[in-house]
């Protein structure tokens, strides 16, 4: 075994880029106080609630702030809201806003903005907010800086749903009464954050400058941020290693060169920057079609795949095998409740025989297709190629279908697939991140990131409903444990591994990662090391 490890590290070290002659020229002083970040491709617009991808979180996290933030223990902390109280029965929440906060265009930040954001804009645009805020009966702006939320029923994940990318505060005086999709400010967003939008050169870069009137004293530590378009993974690798760029996150760098980046002395590598999202890489089965609707087939599918090897070899050590819909480092995870599916091809074959799927011509028991994520041959593609190989060893022949993003979202939304690959973030609480994929109520044709599998289990619906409204954490934990037991026994979804995306930054900067939401909290705290 040592041969493999030595070979891996040897390869990584050998490949370290001798500091190239052509990179010296990029280190002028004026640039030192600017953060250089990059984007794989340009977002369609900068309306944070409307389009919630990772690159949007990194950019708009600096512009639009949320009422609360979470600390490393996922406890809500004050942000735009100075302090907050929850009534004992969990039916009323009152937030006292900071009086000294102004929007980038000089207008004051008041309770009216909060009422508009949480009452109108977020539920309409952001699928996650829509679920969480459906529990609100009424929002009242008690005075200029106090907001009271009356709930229909207790909702213990309510505070977490007001954190970072789940609920960015939007300026009412700009968006109220307009069509959120075509509002011109989607291309020059206004927020309260440490950095203001300055310029967007299409196809080249987005430039944010420091917000001189930012409410947190001494912040932001830097003069501005450049997000430059950097289309290919190897170009991003070179940009990071040559110092032309300071930050690189998750999918920017191909896992293949992960060890090389970790070994690079001038780069800090953090694996905990995205714990807040708690992303799990999964495969969704269209349970409207035989044999995917049969639990034994799904169990055989899980047993056929060696997920340890998938994480260690295919992902070069990134991530952790997922045994539950809830990430292991999140509060409600219950290791005892879950049914675990270890790599056991013999068990898989037995299950398939039990189902009557005997090996036919050429040892093939059943043929089906897997729709791939269009990642240009990166980590996802390699993963699904391994899975295809693993499944073929138990007689399941897979036809891979490559797609582009438009086709992927159209076919997944309209349930036109046997099995597809995907990854979902929990965002701190199962009620926000997990339930949407298993609730019968969330089976909505044409809309991606919903219960695409068509999984429907009355007990699961009831449990999720009860858990969300349980005031006592212990009661919620009991429901979630039962849920994990049912879902994992039922193999409601093929959970592959908990993604531990890496976040790399140049060691010339510090205070880059301040909490589990990482970049989504903005780079206000960043200063020169």
């Amino acid at each position: 075994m040592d041969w493999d490890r030595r070979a891996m590290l040897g390869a990584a070290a050998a490949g370290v880029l001798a500091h190239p002659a052509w990179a010296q020229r990029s280190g002028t002083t004026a640039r030192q106080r600017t953060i250089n970040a990059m984007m794989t491709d340009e977002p369609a617009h900068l309306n944070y609630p409307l389009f919630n991808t990772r690159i949007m979180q990194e950019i708009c996290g600096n512009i639009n702030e949320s009422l609360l933030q979470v600390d490393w223990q996922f406890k809500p902390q004050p942000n735009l809201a100075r302090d907050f109280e929850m009534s004992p029965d969990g039916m009323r929440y009152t937030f006292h806003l900071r009086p000294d906060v102004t929007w980038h265009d000089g207008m004051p930040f008041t309770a009216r903005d909060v009422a508009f954001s949480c009452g109108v804009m977020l539920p309409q645009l952001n699928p996650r907010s829509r679920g969480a805020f459906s529990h609100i009966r009424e929002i009242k702006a008690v005075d200029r800086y106090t907001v009271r939320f009356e709930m229909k029923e207790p909702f213990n994940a309510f505070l977490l749903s007001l954190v970072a990318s789940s609920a960015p505060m939007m300026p009412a005086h700009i968006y109220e009464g307009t069509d959120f999709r075509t509002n011109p400010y989607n291309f020059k967003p206004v927020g309260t954050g440490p950095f203001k939008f300055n310029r967007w050169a299409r196809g080249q870069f987005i430039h944010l400058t420091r917000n001189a009137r930012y409410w947190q004293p001494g912040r932001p530590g830097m003069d501005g941020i450049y997000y430059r378009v950097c289309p290919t993974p190897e170009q991003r690798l070179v940009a990071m290693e040559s110092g032309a760029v300071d930050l690189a996150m998750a999918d920017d760098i191909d896992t293949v060169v992960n060890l090389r980046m970790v070994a690079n002395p001038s780069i800090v590598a953090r694996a905990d920057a995205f714990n807040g999202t708690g992303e799990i890489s999964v495969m969704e089965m269209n349970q409207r079609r035989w044999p995917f609707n049969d639990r034994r087939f799904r169990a055989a599918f899980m047993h056929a795949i060696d997920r340890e090897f998938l994480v260690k070899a295919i992902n070069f050590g990134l991530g952790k095998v997922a045994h539950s819909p809830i990430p292991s480092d999140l509060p409600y995870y219950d290791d005892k409740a879950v049914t675990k599916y270890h790599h056991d091809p013999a068990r898989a074959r037995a299950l398939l025989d039990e189902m009557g799927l005997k090996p036919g011509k050429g040892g093939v028991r059943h043929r089906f297709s897997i729709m791939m994520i269009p990642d240009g041959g990166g980590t996802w593609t390699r993963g699904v190629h391994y899975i295809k190989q693993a499944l073929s060893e138990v007689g399941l022949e897979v036809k891979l279908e490559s797609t582009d993003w438009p086709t992927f979202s159209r076919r997944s939304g309209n349930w036109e697939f046997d099995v597809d690959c995907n990854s979902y973030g929990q965002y701190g609480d199962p009620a926000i991140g997990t339930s949407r994929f298993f609730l019968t109520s969330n089976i909505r044709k044409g809309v991606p990131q919903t219960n695409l599998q068509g999984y429907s289990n009355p007990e699961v619906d009831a449990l999720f409903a009860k858990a969300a409204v349980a005031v006592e954490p212990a009661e919620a934990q009991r429901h979630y444990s039962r849920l994990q037991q049912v879902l994992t026994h039922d193999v409601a979804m093929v959970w592959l591994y908990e993604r531990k995306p890496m976040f790399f930054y140049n060691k010339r900067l510090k205070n880059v990662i301040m909490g589990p939401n990482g970049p989504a909290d903005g780079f206000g705290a960043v200063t020169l090391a």
Partner: protein
Amino acid sequence: MNRLSYIGARLVKTVLITVAVVLLSFFLIRLAPGDTATVMAGQAGFADEAFMKSLRAEYGLDQPVPVQLWKYLTAVAQGDLGMSFVRRQPVLDVILERLPNTMLLNAFALLVAIGGGVLFGMFAARRPGSAGDASVTVLSMLFYAVPQFWLGMMAMLVFSVWLGWLPPFGIETMGADYTGLARIADIAVHMILPGVTLALYFMASYARLTRTAMIEVADQDFVKTARAKGISEGQVAHRHILRNALIPLVTFAGLQAAILVGGSVLVENVFSWPGVGTLAYEAVTTRDNPLLLGIFIVTAVLVSLFNLATDIAYSIADPRVELGR
């Protein structure tokens, strides 16, 4: 048939070809499953019916195909190539913004290819059958057989990864914001690797073409006459052999234009050169139909103008050819 009316005729032909290009690509893109509305909805993050219906109305996708085609043709006539879905910008602006980069790269590549090709060709033709001749032939067949994208990656591996001499990606150092002469030098340094990679493939064909043309011309009678006149061997080679040997090169350059654009798609992709090549690849993978259509039209017009230029150059190089005969 004077030159002017010939050029007029060729311009008419260019217009006809462009219309043909529009028709072909317009219906080709209809070939793809799912229409543009689903594509755009996919981009915006969700695809519920209402949103898609509003999109179809907005972009006139719900009208019958002939109407759409006619509207598109009249728009193109006025230079309006429609909006790019992905980039939310007029297609023409997007293309014109990136066209100079591709033309710069292709011009540099063509220069290197013709320059190198003719030199190697002449060297090989000086002593047919010699070791020099054989090595040029085999080398040119080698570069003719190498996949361009792989050649680019190898060049990057050697000159950027191992030797660290040349920057591997992009058109200028990221974020360096040079100006004036420094910027030109920076771009020039960035252009070496992609330019030479693109050039080598064509240099191979130019070398072989020059070599065979030189050898064939050297056997012609008028070369014997020239020697019979007692003029110096250098003058024979230069004024008689080379001048006649260059004629096939001109037509060959015309044929190469379209292949050059195709080649640059690959090379630009490998080196992340912000040109029309990467734009075309992006347009194909994100199914940005108007942008794709626009790229077809612009490249078709450019290539046919380039061909017109080579035809005129040909008629200058070879007096026997009357334009339009």
